[in-house]
């Protein structure tokens, strides 16, 4: 994979640092020297314990917060410009739907902000609701829907302007296990239909392995990338979750997550 940013690269982060309260006694290094390249159409998961900076990294890519040092390019342009051009769609752990809008008008929101005419954005919203299989709920209010359905509306909204990149911050984190697995299949189907690049933050090892082409393992204090585990499971289906290769990958990611702790102990032992 090329390290130089180009239009065939979905995201390219180089030398990214994020330091909160720099120079003060409560200084926290949330991100330390992050280098990450995400290819066009690639599915990347960021995984790690709380405080490892995975959400911060996603927010830096989304230009919701600025890096202290380093550069982030999204679709070949700086992150700030990518946000202004709506080069990505974003979904959060909370669906963040607006109660005063119907389901359809929630999906229309990004199009409305872009100044699309009324009939065109309504047609586009219905198309997206069909994709997430919620067309029958277009005129419902968000609070009439289950958590999983709300999250599907949020995903439909993030796809509204047809951005090449999806940024997802633990979107299934608040869902029960059954719903969660269904949503994972749904997301993979949408990805296949649309060819989006996806960066997906999660706490769940099986989730990361099932969804991703590569799992980026991060560790806290300071937040940094400790390992990148490639996943090669081919086409996902119902059998994938029970396949030998799946468990091997889960073990590989788990060991990568532990690896850091062991490494630090070894390093300290070496000093003595």
């Amino acid at each position: 994979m090329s390290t130089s940013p180009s239009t065939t690269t979905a995201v390219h982060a180089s030398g990214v640092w994020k330091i909160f309260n720099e120079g003060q006694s409560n200084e926290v290094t949330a991100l330390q020297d992050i280098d990450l390249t995400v290819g066009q159409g690639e599915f990347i998961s960021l995984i790690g314990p709380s405080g490892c900076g995975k959400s911060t990294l996603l927010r830096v890519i989304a230009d919701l917060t600025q890096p202290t040092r380093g550069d982030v390019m999204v679709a070949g342009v700086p992150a700030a410009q990518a946000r202004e051009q709506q080069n990505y769609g974003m979904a959060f752990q909370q669906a963040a739907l607006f109660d005063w809008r119907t389901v359809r008008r929630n999906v229309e929101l990004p199009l409305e902000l872009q100044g699309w005419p009324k009939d065109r954005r309504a047609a586009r919203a219905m198309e997206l609701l069909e994709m997430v299989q919620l067309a029958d709920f277009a005129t419902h209010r968000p609070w009439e829907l289950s958590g999983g359905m709300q999250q599907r509306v949020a995903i439909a909204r993030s796809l509204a302007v047809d951005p090449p990149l999806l940024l997802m911050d633990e979107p299934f984190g608040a869902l029960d296990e059954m719903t969660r697995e269904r949503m994972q299949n749904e997301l993979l189907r949408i990805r296949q239909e649309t060819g989006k690049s996806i960066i997906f933050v999660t706490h769940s090892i099986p989730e990361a392995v099932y969804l991703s082409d590569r799992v980026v393992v991060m560790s806290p204090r300071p937040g940094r990338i400790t390992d990148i585990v490639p996943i090669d499971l081919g086409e996902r289906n119902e059998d994938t979750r029970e396949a030998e290769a799946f468990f091997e990958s889960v073990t590989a990611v788990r060991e990568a997550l532990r690896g850091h702790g062991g490494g630090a102990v070894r390093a300290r032992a070496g000093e003595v």
Partner: protein
Amino acid sequence: MSERLKPVWTPLLIGVLALAAWELLVIVQDIKPYLLPAPSLIASNFFGDLGLMSSTAFYTGTTAIMGLAIGTILGIVAALLAVRFSVVNNLITPLAAGLATVPIIALTPILNNMFNITSRTPRVLVTVIIVFFPMFVNLTRGLLQVQPVQLELMRSMNASPKTTLRVLRIPNAIPFFFTGLKIAAPLAVITALVAEYFGGPQQGLGSRIASSAANTAYGRAWAYVVASIVVGLLFYLVVLALERWSTPWIGHRRSN
């Protein structure tokens, strides 16, 4: 329908029983009207001159409506400015908190001297001041209390602060607006009425309660009190109806 009326039946029944007990007490104990007039006496005064009752109520109601409307508009403008410009927020909010502790109704005699006492103006002004605070405080809260994730979403969609105000903050503040209005509307009636005790035109509820009591027409004084309650209730119910009509999305919160 019967499901919807259910919560009305119990208090209605208790009300009727209480009135009956009151009537009985006055008859049995032979209580004099200046102490406590019987409900039947109040009712005969109330219904005996419904035309006068309603024109009196209309006068005070109009003062209250004017104060409520102007106070609400000022509250909206101040809240929008406070949210848009933090300078204004830092200026108005402590001022609002400070002024809220002042017994504003006590300003009436002063306002009577400052403005034409023979007009409605001083009473409307006091009502405006009273209405302003609950409206301003609730609206500011509604405009500011949006979920952080919703703000991040707006930013991710490249929305300007102005767009965020229009698309997110203002709709979010509408339930808070009605909370404020539900406090302010009955308060406006009370203020318009009490302000009449300090002199000026005599055709309002407050003036007539005072003059009836002074003329030992206790049944009549109480009938005006009933008319005041009717006006206050009417204001509240209109606000409630407006709220249900304009914010169908918070139905789920109500039903919980």
